[in-house]
């Protein structure tokens, strides 16, 4: 018997979303599985970078029907100009993912635009635009060591984890690039954010080549390449700020599909009547590796430190439990899950979810086909719906919002707005700043409660009549109708509360991407690592493409 999915009222709370972990259905993993399964080929037709680190390189990925090229422009950035904030105007390296193989003319056109990022303009042959900055802590150290014929310090590599961090990866039509709709029909881009993930995967290869190249130019006689084990430990860092936070709220049908896929995977494993010994043994290894991972995961942010302490304690408790209670009997995974719901924190439960589905790729990986959403198809409002039905839907799906006092200063504390200066989403204090007139529609709970109140006095009849007289509710009526058929579409929490942490929204999305080692730097921006431990493009042909997110037990990371 298949067990039901978890209740959206449990799953879609901010604190739990903020405890999300990468898993088999994360977009980076979906990408690498496909590249491996389809025998994608990789080459580097151009690498022209001088001793100052200035020049360009082209990395190509060749799939069954299409080739894609990461065009990387490397720059000599004065240290005082290096900033990860979206307001920066210069970077250590800038990139675009090109649809096909670029000609010299393409590259010259892009050289005039890609290094300028937001100030430049690309075309439909470009699929993404991004940029990255060096890690001051690590980049110079690695080049110096390699030039001197020595390997970089392994501990420093583990502590920092990346040589460059991206500060924005723009896709889907941004800056003139191709819309997602233009390529979404290609199998390799059907799952979400595959363009962006491919871009970062190739960026990682470029950055590792770059440090070895710079070391060789600096000291041709003594320079060495990096030890493959150390190389592997380096991912691409990323700084993610408030700009990304509204995304999950602005894409309810898509969010629903991401969460539904994950919850379906969990339900399938929980529903298994028995657990084969090899799967149980694999699970035990993943738990041990997750413990190592939790130990390696560092953050100076007090909230994250509390979470890490909980996660480490949970994993120790889990191992203890497994020793006393073997995974056996009828629906053994469900028994384990039910224990976890009473014994572990949200961090531990969400980590366990990822670990439980890990040995069952054959059972859950097909769910990656369900991650995308036809958002346009869900846009049109059903005006014929009776007002009474709309009332019932709100009572059913927004009950968490209806019992809040939305007039209280605490519940209504924040305003999401876009600043004139940076044209980026910001979060402000309603009582302290004159920003309410600029409020973005990013608080569905309050809006649903206001709609519900106005519906109480509305005449029976179609929603169309109501909306003609109450156009201010059009936005939330659309959301309610989407949520009625997409139970995980809505974050069931107050997104403007005084105590709301934007980093919870960021982590939920970044975990879906496949990021790990979340390191909040404040309550509103977070550092992460992408593809840390993953094979490099040429390694995919002869290595496991899908066993890299947790450190190995043999002392690697």
């Amino acid at each position, binding site marked *: 018997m298949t067990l039901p999915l978890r209740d959206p009222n449990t799953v879609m709370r901010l604190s739990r979303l903020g405890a999300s972990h990468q898993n088999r259905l994360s977009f980076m993993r979906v990408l690498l599985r496909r590249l491996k399964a389809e025998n994608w080929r990789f080459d580097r037709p151009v690498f022209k970078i001088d001793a100052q680190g200035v020049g360009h390189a082209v990395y190509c990925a060749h799939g069954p029907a299409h080739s894609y090229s990461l065009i990387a422009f490397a720059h000599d950035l004065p*240290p005082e100009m290096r*900033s*990860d*904030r979206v307001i920066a105007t210069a970077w250590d390296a800038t990139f675009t993912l090109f649809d096909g193989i670029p000609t010299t003319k393409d590259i010259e056109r892009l050289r005039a635009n890609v290094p300028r990022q937001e100030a430049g*303009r690309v*075309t*439909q042959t470009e699929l993404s635009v991004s940029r990255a*900055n060096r*890690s*001051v802590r690590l980049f110079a150290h690695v080049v110096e060591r390699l030039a001197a014929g020595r390997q970089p310090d392994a501990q420093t590599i583990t502590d920092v984890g990346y040589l460059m961090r991206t500060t924005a990866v723009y896709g889907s*039509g*941004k*800056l*003139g690039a*191709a*819309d*997602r*709709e233009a390529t979404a029909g290609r199998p390799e881009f059907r799952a979400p954010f595959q363009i962006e993930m491919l871009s970062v995967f190739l960026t990682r290869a470029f950055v590792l080549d770059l440090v070895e190249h710079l070391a060789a130019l600096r000291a041709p006689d003594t320079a060495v390449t990096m030890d493959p084990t150390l190389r592997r430990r380096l991912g691409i860092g990323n700084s993610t*700020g*408030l700009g990304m936070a509204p995304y999950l709220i602005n894409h309810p049908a898509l969010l629903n599909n991401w969460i539904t896929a994950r919850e379906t995977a969990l339900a399938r494993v929980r529903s298994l009547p028995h657990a084969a010994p090899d799967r149980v043994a694999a699970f035990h290894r993943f738990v041990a590796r997750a413990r190592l991972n939790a130990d390696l995961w560092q953050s100076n942010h007090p909230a994250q430190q509390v979470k890490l302490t909980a996660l480490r304690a949970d994993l120790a408790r889990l191992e203890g439990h497994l020793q006393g209670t073997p995974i056996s009997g009828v629906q053994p995974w469900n028994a384990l899950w039910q224990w976890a719901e009473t014994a572990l924190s949200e961090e531990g439960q969400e980590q366990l979810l990822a670990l439980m589905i890990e040995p069952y790729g054959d059972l859950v990986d097909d769910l990656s086909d369900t991650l995308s959403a036809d958002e*346009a198809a869900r846009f*049109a*409002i059903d*005006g*014929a719906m009776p007002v009474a039905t709309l009332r019932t839907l709100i009572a059913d799906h927004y009950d968490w919002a209806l019992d809040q006092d939305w007039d209280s200063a605490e519940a209504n504390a924040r305003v999401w*707005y*876009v*600043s*004139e*200066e*940076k*044209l*980026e989403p*910001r*979060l*402000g204090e309603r009582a*302290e*700043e*004159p*920003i309410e007139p*600029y409020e*973005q*529609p990013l608080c569905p709970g309050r809006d649903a409660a206001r709609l519900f109140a106005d519906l109480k006095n509305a005449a029976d009849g*179609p*929603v*169309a*009549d109501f*909306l*003609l007289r109450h*156009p*201010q*509710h*059009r*936005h*939330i009526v*659309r959301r309610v109708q989407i949520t009625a058929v997409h139970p995980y579409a809505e974050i069931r929490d107050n997104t403007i509360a005084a105590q709301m942490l934007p980093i919870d929204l960021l982590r939920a999305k970044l975990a879906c991407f496949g990021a790990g080692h979340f390191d909040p*730097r*404040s309550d*509103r*921006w977070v550092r992460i690592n992408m593809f840390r431990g993953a094979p490099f493009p040429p390694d995919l042909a002869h290595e496991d493409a899908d066993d890299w997110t947790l450190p190995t037990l043999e002392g690697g990371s």
Partner: protein
Amino acid sequence: MSWSLNELEALARKAARGRGMTWGLAEETGRATRALCGWGMDAPSALTKLLQLQDGLAHDAVAPARTAGPWRATGGALCPIAAGCCLNDFATMLRSGPIHMHSVAKPLLLLGFVQMAARRLGQPVRLTIGAVQFCVTGDDMAVEGDLPDLPDHSDVTAALADAPFGTALIRHSRADVSDGAAAILTAFAHRTYAPATEASRLAGAGAGLSDND
């Protein structure tokens, strides 16, 4: 200049909000503008003129005052966004007979809504704007008459069509947006941005910690 449809949709949404539409209507404006560009029509120019024409007018002044009988606005011309939303919301009314709209500004902008209605009804809809007729199905669009003859301002009739007719329009994957229209839409969009204060600069994005390490 060539714009991606996503860029254009985002700009149209913000511009509509900047003109004072509610967020829900602004979203519809973005979709409708995108849909029209997807059929190769100069929706950005039409939207620009609409926003200038109806800037500052209340919804009640430009929306259909009632849906029984011909639709008309109390404050002058009907807004094609407000009327278009109604057309989609009341799509099933078309099964009982045509919907007549009196004096619609920039009626071209109705087409995206007609398409949503046709999709919902599963039947082609004929939209008559002056001497030009459009045949709109859930997936396709065709025209009878010359597009340049399309009036700026016109009475409009929407009715179910028995069968498809007209010359099929070709899908476009990009929007050609004139610099003039882009500048005006950007100016409307700009009204949605909050002026920065020193406090918001520091707190708004949570800066403060060095990001250069």
